[in-house]
């Protein structure tokens, strides 16, 4: 079972975190910090795996992947395969890339709820639900369409970029 999904930027700021078992806010922060300090002490060009018993209890492993300014992290137990989890990160990133065409950290920050929608279509209650990014995209698009239809009021401010121009 997958225990947690995290995206942390290279400065240690969490950009998205989801724990599949309840953790208090403090515990979540502690874990995120712990994971980050482990990650940044890793040299380049080493394996993407970490044994992380000290933070998540016995037999927990962690797989991470470093893209540009972001660490994508999956924490899971012995019932999952490390290499497969590495590919699951790949699926997630591929999907986000399709979603935001050439995804970057900003997209993730500014589209917080959409990120969760995407993630929920891939991992459901700690189990892998779908690994085909095209299928995930279909589901996400369907949700957006229905959401837009169900909501008469436009939620999009007319000019988002206005604030930049000041």
């Amino acid at each position: 079972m997958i225990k947690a999904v995290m995206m942390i930027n290279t400065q240690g700021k969490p950009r998205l975190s989801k724990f599949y078992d309840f953790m208090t806010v403090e515990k979540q922060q502690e874990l995120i910090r712990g994971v980050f300090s482990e990650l940044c002490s890793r040299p380049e060009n080493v394996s993407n795996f970490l044994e992380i018993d000290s933070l998540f209890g016995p037999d927990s492993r962690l797989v991470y992947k470093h893209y540009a300014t972001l660490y994508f992290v999956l924490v899971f137990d012995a019932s999952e395969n490390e290499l497969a989890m590495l590919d699951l990160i790949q699926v997630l990133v591929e999907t986000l890339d399709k979603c935001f065409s050439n995804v970057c950290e900003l997209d993730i920050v500014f589209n917080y709820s959409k990120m969760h929608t995407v993630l929920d279509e891939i991992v459901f209650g700690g189990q892998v639900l779908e690994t085909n990014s095209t299928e995930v995209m279909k589901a996400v698009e369907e949700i957006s369409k229905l959401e837009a239809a169900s909501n008469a009021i436009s939620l999009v401010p007319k000019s988002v970029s206005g604030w930049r121009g000041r």
Partner: protein
Amino acid sequence: MEQLKTIGRELAMGSQGGFGQSKEFLDLVKSIGEARSKAEEDRIVLSEIDTLKRKLLEPDIPKRKMKEYIIRLVYIEMLGHDASFGYIHAVKMTHDDSLLLKRTGYLAVTLFLNEDHDLIILIVNTIQKDLRSDNYLVVCAALNAICRLINEETIPAVLPQVVELLNHGKEAVRKKAIMALHRFHRKSPSSVSHLISNFRKRLCDNDPGVMGATLCPLFDLVSEDVSSYKDLVSSFVSILKQVTERKLPKSYDYHQMPAPFIQIKLLKILALLGSGDKSASEIMYMVLGDLFRKCDSSTNIGNAILYECIRCISCIIPSPKLLEAAADAISKFLKSDSHNLKYMGIDGLGRLIKISPDIAEQHQLAVIDCLEDPDDTLKRKTFELLYKMTKSSNVEVIVDRMIDYMISINDNHYKTEIASRCVELAEQFAPSNQWFIQIMNKVFEHAGDLVNVKVAHNLMRLIAEGFGEEDDDADSKLRLSAVESYLQIISEPKLPSLFLQVISWVLGEYGTADGKYSASYITGKLCDVADAYSSDETVKGYAVSALMKIYAFEIASGRKVDVLPECQSLIEELLASHSTDLQQRAYELQALLSLDARAVESILPLDASCEDIEVDKDLSFLNGYIQQAIESGAQPYISERERSGMLETTDYHSQDHHEVPSHALRFEAYERPKPASVPTQASTELVPVPEPSYYREAHQPISTSSVSERESSDIKLRLDGVKQKWGRPSYQSSTSASSTPPQAANGTSSHPDVGVGSSSLKPRSSYESKKPEIDPEKQRLAASLFGGSSSSRSDRKSSSGGHKPAKGTANKPPKENPIPVQPPPDLLDFGEPTATSVTATDPFKELEGLMDSSSQDGGSTDVMGLYSDAAPVTTTTSVDSLLSELSDSSKGNPGIYQSQTSKGLNSKEALEKDALVRQMGVNPTSQNPTLFKDLLG
């Protein structure tokens, strides 16, 4: 340019519809992103919290505004700040009809609330409604929420609807419903136990995705109870076969692999089902063979499946052909440049090595590379592999390596783990006592605060008992070497407390035993310890007791005792100590010093730490005194249990009338509280004690004051002097407390420390259960470490040959480790000396002469050479060869015995041997891989 790009991106986001946020939110995110310090970030977030608190209180907030506030709350909480003031708004939002708002609401509550939160009760109703919705997206949202929000108590409220959804038209819903059920199963297996057949049924779902989802719960179910799913083996195999033959739609492919996640899950299940089951394993051979052939090892996911196959093969009863295929795959992994694959290779090797131990040999170079790798994960995995393949012939190299690594890391969690592994291996495979003590010293020195106290106690016991052999001489040598090593270590700064305790104990017990060190020298050292670690009371206590023993031995042997001035001042200081324990020890020491030799000898006899002390628990020696007292008119003693037991009977009967189920409300008046006890122990012959009844009357008015408190009134707990606590929990806890048997409560049945015999047996038996097939070689070594049979030593002798000391072993390839004689039949008989060792007594005497000559050859009797890494090879040679000779002779092997006696007399031969050892005694930490041959044998 960069700015333009961002603006463009923001524009694009705005056009994505439904996911855009307002300017304020973007501002917030941006300012947090630009915050230079944590303090600045906190300030921004705190002001944001203020804003949100204010805004949420405004009346008539437009829905889209509200949605954004909720998202901002979620964001704040992700940054580690409390957003609980807004939870209720998120809950309200789940009730909304609009899908967008509802989903946002669900998202927020799943992130905010835990399943036991008070607000959940407000959501359950909404979830029930949503599960019945026509819109499948609403259903999905509700199912998603279920996974996080439903606890054991609320499962029944949604269970029927979830089960209904298993037959929903949309496969996405069926899939999620199965996963929700799986989640229920994890939370409370009993609540869904009647629905398990549904998982089997869904395995045949038309949609492969649903089938794949079913594998997750089935994996859990199979791992809980393998036997009831054996019938599914052929189904799983045929599914796997179809998947690999690309019978699934193209959309399930991932990087040209057909449905890899389904394959992996299936292989995991098959591994469970085939474990130890020959016929089940045989069904799998075909498909596993196909997988090895078909898997594309150029992609990551292909390798994931290959690894899973290896894992599966290591679990089932494999065919030789499959084993070969797995070994090939492993060697491909190990040869790869990717650290990930190397990691998987090492892991696979560790699994396969249990089945075919010789597989590691061909990969020795790769394994050593991994050990030198900068990647910590890989290194640790490799240590795990080494741990699994440790045996007597390579234990020294492996444990040395582990200790080097242990010293180099700072991670306390892993340090603890590797320290305990070192201890375990040393206990299992130690080739000699000296080596064992040396290793333990290192472990204590560098990780002393992290190891279990038991390890220290085991070490002390080992030194006290020796290795259980009928050989006092070897034991005293062992003790002397321990004392010497401790005297050297003791002056080092900042030793861990536990280690100091061991040191103090050993010095006290054996410091002066050999007469090599004077009492004043040892006591001086002990005083230094007590002085240097003055804040550590345990260490001080050990030191004072050690002082006491040394002085006692001195006095008993009739020597004059000069108490050192620093010792005198230490005693004086402790006489006024705040710790009563230290005070007591100091007074005892002071009293002892003034006693004569005979008295002291009976108080603290020499080397009596292994003697059993008989404790007269009934205090029968006081019988005369009691008799006398009763005769002169004293009341006989009534134990507390009997006194309260008496009371219990009276109250027990009165209580019988209103025996009401504990959960229902009870409306009668309060019962009087009474002392805790167990009713069954009642005895009616005793005089009732008036005091409690008086107490009962006093409390009557209070207990009748309120009916609602009736339930919490504690009928069995003694409440006088205790603040009364009302409420259900205290009632339940008290009943459980009173149900424990009295023996356990009053502590008479608490067991004393583990006995001598069991301590020696324990590590071995646990070892046996872990690895069912141990070759006799290991067994003998374990036996030699932890008990009787002296013949086991021979093993070490044969494996190391003439090239002592320890490190020389690495030069010898493992295959040249023939066991010269059959093991004696009564190997496992730990308790008594074996027949062989009895016959050995005679050669011992003859060997005494040899001992002298060999140590002369060595040039020095200084056993301390063992502990300095650098040189004195010769000295260790003498001791080690002596040990092995003793064991050989004890085994009654005439050939070796003969050659050794002659060698002992022939100094020329001994000198030659020394030269050889000098040649061979290379430090194995060098890069030369051939030195590790032993390690992989």
